[in-house]
């Protein structure tokens, strides 16, 4: 086999997807498949780190040390999820700086749900139950996504999300069973987060721009409407146990369909928030840019320390914790900025 033709490669790719095999970073893949993945994984990664903001808003005001420790752990997990996903996006040949730059300049989006404010402590519970619940419904099928690194990141994320959802549910339950004022606070939070959570599944199937192709590529396994219905069906009985109502007068069990019917979603609101006109769009991106800028000195100091440390080792090579000098040397040689992600994927496109 001397040369691999473009046709051979396309055939091999299609066959791998059809056979439910995973596509790995160094495999050939169509440019559009790569671009779709970069867009989706980047948006997902951005959502994780922007999602730290609405909840971090309540860390200093958590009602007990227990709730505070839980919330810190959850927000830290969101940072971790962002990192898993940025790593997955990088295997497609797109650098971390480029992704962050596109987020900061508004050229890549994050989930519109995070443009809503967290007005009370109960919002933290409602986010855990509904927003993380919707995220899990979306993400569990992504564990079988055709792109290996994305699927593996999702497996890890889904394991951790389960704690997020349960802590939210427990917190809402405590409020719901508390004083009348606490109960009212929980109900108000659910009223505000219910509809935006349903919008998290994206536009209806007949208006979803990328759905059909993504499903053909097995990046996506179920349609937006299918996952939204699944989520509604899961939530209704959970709300009953909470002793809270969902703010939809049309919500009703449909015996024939075997599903709950629900009222129309306000897609005008969804599009407005997506366009940047939600309650917190400006605040979220400003805060993200500020955090990045204010962290610059830390990154610079770490890079300067690493450079100095490496130079000193090259000349003096002091007795170090690593006994094998060849390995130590390898690490130094590659620690410069040129050691990007390049060697593992030469076909970078965005």
């Amino acid at each position, binding site marked *: *086999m001397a040369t*691999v033709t473009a046709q051979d490669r396309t055939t091999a790719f299609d066959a791998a997807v059809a056979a439910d095999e995973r596509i*790995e970073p*160094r*495999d*050939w893949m169509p440019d559009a498949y790569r671009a779709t993945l970069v867009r989706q994984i980047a948006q997902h990664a951005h959502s994780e780190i922007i999602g730290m903001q609405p909840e971090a808003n309540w860390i200093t005001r958590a009602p007990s040390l227990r709730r505070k420790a839980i919330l810190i*752990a959850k927000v*830290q*997990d969101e940072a*971790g999820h962002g*990192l*898993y996903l940025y*790593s997955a996006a*990088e295997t497609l040949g797109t*650098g*971390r*700086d480029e992704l962050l*730059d596109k987020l900061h300049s508004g050229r890549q989006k994050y989930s519109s749900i995070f443009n809503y404010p967290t007005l009370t402590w109960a919002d933290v519970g409602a986010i855990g139950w509904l927003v993380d619940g919707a995220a899990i419904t979306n993400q569990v099928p992504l564990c079988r996504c055709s792109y290996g690194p994305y699927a*593996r*990141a999702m497996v*890890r994320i889904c394991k*951790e999300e389960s704690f997020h959802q349960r802590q939210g549910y427990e917190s809402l339950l405590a409020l719901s069973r508390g004083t009348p004022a606490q109960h009212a606070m929980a109900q108000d939070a659910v009223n505000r987060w219910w509809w935006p959570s349903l919008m998290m599944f994206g536009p209806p199937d007949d208006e979803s721009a990328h759905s059909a192709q993504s499903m053909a590529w097995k990046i996506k396994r179920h349609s937006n409407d299918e996952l939204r219905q699944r989520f509604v069906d899961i939530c209704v009985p959970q709300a009953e146990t909470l002793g809270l109502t969902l703010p939809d007068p049309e919500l009703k069990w449909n015996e024939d369909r075997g599903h709950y019917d629900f009222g129309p979603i306000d897609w005008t609101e969804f599009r407005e928030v997506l366009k940047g006109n939600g309650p917190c769009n400006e605040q979220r991106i400003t805060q993200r840019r500020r955090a990045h*800028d204010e962290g*610059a000195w830390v*990154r*610079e100091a*770490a*890079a300067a*320390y*690493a450079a100095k*440390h*490496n130079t000193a080792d090259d000349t003096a090579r002091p007795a170090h914790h690593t006994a094998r000098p060849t390995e130590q040397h*390898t*690490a130094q040689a*590659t*620690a*410069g*900025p*040129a*050691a*990007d*992600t390049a*060697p*593992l994927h030469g076909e970078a496109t965005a």
Partner: protein
Amino acid sequence: MTESTDWPLWEVFVRSRRGLSHTHAGSLHAPDAQMALRNARDLYTRRNEGVSLWVVPSTAITASSPDEKDSFFEPAGDKPYRHPTFYEIPEGVKHL
């Protein structure tokens, strides 16, 4: 943007418990090996997933080419006699 390039990439290997080998967990960016280890601890072992960590510069890894995977691994393909199931042993023979 203050910095123009990413920190180097490191591959992270985690030993989940003594007696098992280190397994690839993922990758991360860090300016040097010590920071890579600390970041790996925070990123990949938040729930007691590991008792030991390795971080390896990604550039130090040499990988086989996916384009050659058929020819590269083909030599093992026609040697079923390397597997114990290749051999027929009469019923009732024990400890074999």
